[in-house]
């Protein structure tokens, strides 16, 4: 029987075995290719999505384990202010090189800021060290997270 999943606010019926990792369901069945395959065993973070707001490695998260939870992918990162601020900072500071890992980086960063609006360097390092970037954009990622945090902080103060 097909499984129903809620991706980016829309319901999808997917006819796959329960042990299928969400990564492949998103990419090959639903057709959302922004979430990336990097290692398949939760070592690199390229496949990071949010499940009920919690960052999860979709390559080891089976579709059968999700139930009614709401899945957010990079394709709707801009639906909330944190995502928007991060995307802007990423472009302002020209973080991106090849870009393949950046969906995962941004999803991890968004989850970080949601739980910790003013992260220290150490906070950022701890969370973001789960995401590998072979182009070596780490320094700019750290700066961009801080810039986004600052922007979000000051817009809250002014509101």
């Amino acid at each position: 029987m097909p499984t129903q999943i809620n991706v980016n606010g829309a319901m999808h019926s997917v006819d796959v075995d329960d042990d299928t990792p969400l990564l492949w369901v998103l990419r090959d069945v639903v057709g959302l290719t922004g979430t990336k395959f990097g290692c398949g065993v939760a070592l690199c973070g390229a496949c990071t999505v949010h499940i009920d707001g919690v960052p999860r490695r979709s390559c080891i998260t089976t579709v059968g384990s999700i139930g009614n939870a709401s899945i957010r992918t990079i394709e709707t990162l801009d639906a909330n202010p944190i995502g928007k601020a991060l995307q802007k900072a990423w472009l302002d500071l020209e973080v991106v090189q090849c870009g393949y890992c950046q969906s995962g980086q941004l999803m991890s960063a968004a989850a970080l800021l949601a739980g910790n609006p003013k992260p220290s360097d150490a906070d950022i390092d701890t969370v973001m060290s789960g995401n590998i970037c072979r182009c070596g954009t780490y320094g700019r990622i750290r700066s961009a997270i801080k810039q986004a945090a600052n922007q979000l902080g000051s817009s809250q103060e002014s509101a």
Partner: protein
Amino acid sequence: MRDQESNSVSRRAFLASAAAVGGGLLIGFRVPVAGASQDTSALAPNAFVRVDRDGRIKVTLPYVEMGQGAYTAQAQLLAEELEVDIEQLTLEHAPPNEALYSHPVFGDQITGGSAGLRGAWEPLRIAGATTRVLLINAAARRWRVNPKTCIAERGEVVHARSGRRLKYSELVDAAARLPAPENVPLKSPADFKLVGKSVKRVDTPDKVNGRAKFGIDAAPAGVKFAAVAACPVFGGKLGSLDDSAAKAVRGVRQIVRLEDTVAVVADHTWAARKGLAALKIKWNEGASARIDTKQLMAELDAGLDQEGVVAVAKGDVSAAEAGAASSYEAVFRLPMLAHLAMEPINCTAHVRKDGCEIWVGCQRLALARRMAAEALGMPAEKITIHNHLLGGGFGRRLEADYVAQAVRIARHVDGPVKVIWSREEDVQHDYFRYHNHSRVRVALDAQQAPVSFSHKLVGPAVMARWLPVFFKDGVDFDIISVAAGAYSWPNVRVEYVRRDPPTGLNFGNWRGVGASRNAFIVESVIDDLARRAGSDPLAYRRKLLAGSPRLLAVLDKAVELANWESPLPPGRGRGVAVLDDFGSYVAQVAEVTVGRNGRVRVDRVVCVVDCGLAVNPDIVKAQMEGGIIYGVSAALYGKITVANGRIQQGNFDDCPVVRMQDAPRIDVHVIPSGEAPGGVGEPGTAVVFPAVTNAIFAATGKRVFELPIDATQLRIS
């Protein structure tokens, strides 16, 4: 014909220079720009630019985008001369076409060797300028004025005196009928509006919202998904196969057997992977089944005692050695390395009776097409390749083995099939940077000044297969590149002993190519000589670099920015290294902390680069930053080993790479310059190996002769 002549002349000049000084890519000639379209509905005077009647300007980009900023830089060059804003351009990946999109020096369609920008520098500016001149001439004719009284700006031709203006779109038909001008004037750097500016990258907005399409994201209608296993023993073949359990996996459609590979084709990747895991495969392991790293290294060590081919000879090394007061000798051993691009190897193909369509991200598109044609026994013209963004290249995608594999699978499949390698497959069937071992001997006079430098290099000849014009008289021009550094040795000998890996163990290019091998060796030797002479490694280098003002300038700037003289606490050290290659000059100062357990942390790297005119300074910085992280990963962890003919590593657990918490702070300074542009993708990687190991020496007094850095050797017992 002129085209071919200028290419061959320049290639000869390049080869001569490569042989003489061991590297450096020289481009200083005019490349006539071919590929005018017969289509009269648009202005398309060459293969790079097309102005449509609706005002759209389509630019075809010959150099692929793998994160290095190639698309942005190419767009800058063309837009600069065409006098349009970058936003007015529609950018497209070039299709495979050797005649139109070959690199002027490599002679094939290649994005690599830190040479893309240098390859594009003249052709794309000429392409833009030719189009601009045609549009100006068309406007001048319409207005019956002298073209010299007209200028182009922001997509319009303007007659300054009368203030009349015409949009490019209004001039397309008239301009398309005019003969293409020859020897068009290129803008003077003083007039550059885009070149030399850190304009925003064109490829990144879609990379922060999931919209960017990499090869792995290709989704032609009806696509199926394949998981593959190639024989884990290199050179081995498929023996017997029991696929009954695999066929029973839900979603599995078919099993494809190739000579050395099995593919499971399914409705989605997970079904394909489950099917693959359910296969019972027996491999015929073949002749390599007992090979291990120890044996491979022993073969390279044996090469050190063998006579090689003399690749560089200056003066009389033997006489200098005979008359020397003392001598220095050291042996260096470099490991096998994998590339580990974030996007695992993949290729999508649809083979029909009458042709083949391929979706991929590849650094050598024309080679990809030739290999697909050969695999299918089909003329190359029948093969269409859609290139995509590359999720990292680093040299791995300079090969096209995965394209040949994909079409071999796809010919058995009805409809398109996307082949995605697992990370383990990606690591174990890489085209590795193969081992090389070196012995360096330096003869010294009574004052510890070098009188000769002799470097015997044992390693693979990548160019013999990969780009045969760079392999001549038994010498691989890549592996000997910068093998004597930029130092003014009175007598020099570079000797090369070729040692390719056993058949089936694939080897290729890795970021930094020859320089990533030799910068470590030469810069370690110099450092060692300085310590031996009781001299500061900086002062010692400066004396031997008197003939290299640009290198001296970056060196001086780097030590200034790094505060070279300031003391560091115990356990920390600072090391310096320089490189003159790829047409660029780079100096780095690394600061490391070595723990009592020997663990090395790279705290900071200061990098100064003189790459001539920096077309986009921020991209230059980003390339240096990225190159440094890539090199630090390899220096600390990079090591691929073989046991029983198999690669022993497979994923980021046993191939660790630098993560954010280990990443050094990096400060890059770009020297302003009006010289011809140099390459920036690779030198940052090459220089950081010795900058780090020299810093380790400063911290511990221990010299690293073998990579990767072995913490157990640095432990304080």
